[in-house]
Every structure is written in C-alpha cells, then in structure tokens.
C-alpha cells in the first residue's frame, strides 16, 4: 500500500495509514528522498500513528529516510510513535538515535518551524 505524501509549504508530510510491508517502506523512502528534491522541501514529517508495531526493518528504514533527507537538505521528524510501540522498540534494542521525534503532527510542525527559524537566524 502506497503511503500518501502531502506537500504543505516547505514540508512534506507522509501519513502512514495502515500496516506496511518491507517493500512499502522502501518505496516510501525512495519517494520521500526524490520529492525533497522535486519540491525543494526543507522538512519531512513521517506520521507513524497508525503503525501498531515497529520492527527492526521499519526502524532502520525510518532512520535511513531521516539521514538521506538530511543529505538532501531537509530535516525529518518522526511523529506519533504509540506508547506500546515505544515499549516494544526499547525491548528489541531499537533506537532512533540521531533522528528527531515528536509526540504528534502538531508538535512535529512546531519542531520544523523552529528549526527553519534557526537556519534563517544563522544566516
């Protein structure tokens, strides 16, 4: 199932709607990295609220998305990790080190706006 990606100003918002296969996750990674260039996006939000489990492949792919987008000049924030999902991730030994996370979409947007401002202030 393809994940819809919305363009919202300088940001891309990928809103995962249902369980994803490994192929779906890889497809999402390619699509986001390509669109960051096409739309000259400064930020990417991946909303995982609908994911009821994240295993090692999902976490690795999210980390790859964040690192690849950064190499293309966009900041990524993962939003909506559910409490049970966070619990299972920690027990599995999975971390999102070096990847920004926020509670929900709203917090994710605040995070990216703040990052954008810092970038302007630094000139």
């Amino acid at each position, binding site marked *: 199932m393809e994940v819809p990606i919305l363009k919202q100003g300088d940001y891309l918002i990928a809103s995962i709607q249902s*369980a*994803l*296969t*490994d*192929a779906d996750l890889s497809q999402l990674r390619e699509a986001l990295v390509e669109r960051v260039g096409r739309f000259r996006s400064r930020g990417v939000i991946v909303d995982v609220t609908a994911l*009821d*489990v*994240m*295993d*090692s*492949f999902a976490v*690795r792919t999210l980390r790859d998305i964040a690192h690849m987008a950064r190499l293309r000049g966009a900041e990524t924030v993962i939003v909506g990790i*559910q*409490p*049970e*999902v966070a*619990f*299972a*991730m920690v*027990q*599995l*030994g*999975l971390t999102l080190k070096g990847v920004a996370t926020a509670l929900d979409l709203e917090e994710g947007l605040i995070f990216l706006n703040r990052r954008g401002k810092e970038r302007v202030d630094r000139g």
Partner: protein
Amino acid sequence: MADESTVPIRSDVDIVSARQKGRELAADCGFEMGDQTVIAAAISEIARNILMYAKRGEIRFRGLADGDRQGIVVVAEDQGPGIRDVSLALQDGFSTSGGLGLGLPGARRLMDEFDVASEPGRGTTITMKKWIRRGHA
C-alpha cells in the same frame, strides 16, 4: 485452547499477516495491548529471519494453558540452511545478512521463553512463549 493458526512465510506480505494474526490470537488469549505489541514485534523479527535466510517457512501459534497460567506459543519453522552457531546468532549485533543483528536476540528479549533448534543444512525451529502477567498492569 483450540485456536491454532499457521501462516506460511514466502514474502514480505506474509510477515505482516503473521504479526497481525499473532496479535489477534494474543488478544483472544487475554493479553493486554502492550504485550500484544511485544508479541507482534517478536513474530515480525523471526518471520523476517525465515525470509532472509531460508526464503520460506511457516509460523504457527496457539494459546497455552498451564495450570492457572495462560499464554501463547509461537513456532517458526523452516527447512533453510540452519544456524551453525546458535549462541553466536543470539548475540546482539551479530548478523550474516548485513542486517542490524537484532532479530533473534531482540525477539528473545521480548518473549518469556525462547528456544532455537537448528541443524545445519536441515533447517531451524524457533519456539517462543509468552505468559500473561498477573497482579500488575
């Protein structure tokens, strides 16, 4: 308990079905949300292990009753190349596939009991159990 399910593992779509079926059965057995997620994550890791190393296999699960304890047993079986050194494969960060090396040790941490029977050239059977925790949420 009669509920038993088998999910053949042949592609990445089957990983999703296996963990969804496992979660459903865990819910039927009386596991709460948190443990359902933990069980689903463990199933996901061992299902991917089958796909990665053996290409095909199957996952079976069923409810468990042992005295006044209830739980779930998940068996992952394949006729793949087998694991030469099981204790090495259970170490964090060890991988022969270029993966994260968290599959087996991660799944073991998530479950209460974890057993690997493997014979090089003949296949691998992983049996893991989780029991419903009583007395605390």
